[in-house]
């Protein structure tokens, strides 16, 4: 059942892992950005009662930087290339469900970039920084009892991220290029996933909306669990919401993919 989808997942995962230079370069950039964001936020932090403490915010930001691949703003480059060259015709010649085939590939692409960078980030911000005497700027260990929940939540977050990009991919297929959908989606994901600023640091009136919208289920919810902002029943509710969005995004993505493929079948490659 799953083998026809797992094989392309594994192949893409291994292939993406091979780009070590890209991973390292990306990691260095993400360290710089992380340091910059932390310094800016720290400058604005008073001793006020912010919803996240400064150490929580610092940990949150290092993790965002390590997990950048999850809140990425571009459709699968392989799909974009396929749309340009007409190679997606070959995807339609495979005896598999096209949505899950593309989903498997984009999920592999996301995870193979996220995992090594997250590992490096833990080494740098979690171990090297404290060892060099910068403990107050470091990535702290997860809040007590949060480890398991965080692992579950971040895994669902990655699946959500893939579902989101599969949806974006359907838009790329429908419009024939990645620019329109990419520009629109890029702005949303950066702001609403917590990538730019932790969602808890937005004004109070926005909190309910921000917690409920689908992008929070990619990154913000798992990170709030990690830093201990969400725990116990609240954490479980957040995970339930993540699952809800996963199902919704997959259904929506399947619908959108079916529609763009129907258009493709009519208009030709």
């Amino acid at each position: 059942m799953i083998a026809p989808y797992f094989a392309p997942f594994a192949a893409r995962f291994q292939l993406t892992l091979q780009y070590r230079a890209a991973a390292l370069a990306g990691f260095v950039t993400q360290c710089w950005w992380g340091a910059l964001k932390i310094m800016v936020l720290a400058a604005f932090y008073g001793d006020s009662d912010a919803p996240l403490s400064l150490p929580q915010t610092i940990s949150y930001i290092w993790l965002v930087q390590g997990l950048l691949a999850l809140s990425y703003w571009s459709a699968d480059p392989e799909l974009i290339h396929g749309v340009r060259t007409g190679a997606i015709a070959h995807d339609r010649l495979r005896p598999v469900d096209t949505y899950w085939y593309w989903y498997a590939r984009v999920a592999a692409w996301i995870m193979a970039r996220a995992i090594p960078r997250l590992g490096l980030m833990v080494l740098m911000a979690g171990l090297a920084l404290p060892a060099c005497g910068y403990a107050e700027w470091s990535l702290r260990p997860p809040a007590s009892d949060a480890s398991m929940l965080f692992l579950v939540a971040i895994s669902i977050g990655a699946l959500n991220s893939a579902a989101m990009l599969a949806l974006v991919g359907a838009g790329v297929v429908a419009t024939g290029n990645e620019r329109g959908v990419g520009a629109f989606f890029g702005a949303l994901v950066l702001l609403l996933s917590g990538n730019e600023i932790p969602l808890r640091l937005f004004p109070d009136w926005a909190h309910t909306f921000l917690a409920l919208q689908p992008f929070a289920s990619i990154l913000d919810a798992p990170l709030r669990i990690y830093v201990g902002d969400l725990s116990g029943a609240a954490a479980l509710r957040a995970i339930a919401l993540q699952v809800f969005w996963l199902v919704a995004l997959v259904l929506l993505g399947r619908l959108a993919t079916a529609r763009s493929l129907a258009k493709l079948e009519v208009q030709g490659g």
Partner: protein
Amino acid sequence: MSAHIRVEGLRKTYRIPERDAGMWGALRSVVHRRYRTVEALSDVSFTLQRGELLGFIGPNGAGKSTTIKILSGILRPDGGLCEVDGLTPWRSRIAHVARIGVVFGQRTQLFWDLPVREGFGLLRSIYRVPEASYRRTEAELVELLRIEPLLDQPVRLLSLGQRMRCELAASMLHEPSLLFLDEPTIGLDAPSKLAVREFIQRLNRERGVTVLLTTHDMHDIEALAQRVIVIGHGRLLSDGSFEQLRAKVLHERLLVIDFADVVPSLAIEGATERAREGRRLTLAFDPTRITAPSLIARIAASYEVEDVHVEQPRIEQVISRFYDQLGAVEA
């Protein structure tokens, strides 16, 4: 024998966006999109029996690739009936594509960055081919196409000829009973073309794989196809054997005679002088009016002849004349 492919009254039109050149045209197209409708297929019907090898020829833009894309389930026609192995390709896509192999000469289905063998393995999983039968098929294909030394190379490093042999293997790994080949010899050098032709021939003769092939290379057709369909402007212009096609278009053969002495002037009914060079004379004749043996006999009776041979007109000429006659070439 039973029908493998049945196509009746297939129609397909494309809408092509158009805009005037320049800045003004670009701005106007933002507000108002203009489309031109192009009829790719207007009425195509044919039946292909199991085990047949059919060549599809026609000028560029005639509708060959569109036909293949519809038959393989990539495109949905606007009208008409199409059944492959009892299935309608675009309605039962997954079941249908599991039973066919497709090669587009201009594109690759291999995985660009993966070594050939890994790409094959990936296809095995995607097609759910059982390990044992896969190992047998792969070994056979590798031997038949002589690609053993290529298996560990990434696809992007292969030459076009090497890649095409790997494409053919990839399209047959799941042992389909029907193979679509869209210009499989395009851009290949002579040895690669021969290798591709030999492979197609063996698949068809030894394994009974039904083959539908499009090409611009008439030697492909001459070497391979038992049956040829000519398509132009989205219509079938002719359907029959290559010999029939040749006879239909050109009633002309050439007789080349080397005389022992000077070339005489001849006046023979049904034959006209075409060229005269040294002691060699080339006559064009219509075999329906005078047969080659009787023509030779008449000449040899009156003159001393050193050598004689009959030539077929070149097939490229046959075809381009045919396209002209039928008005198939696009403006």
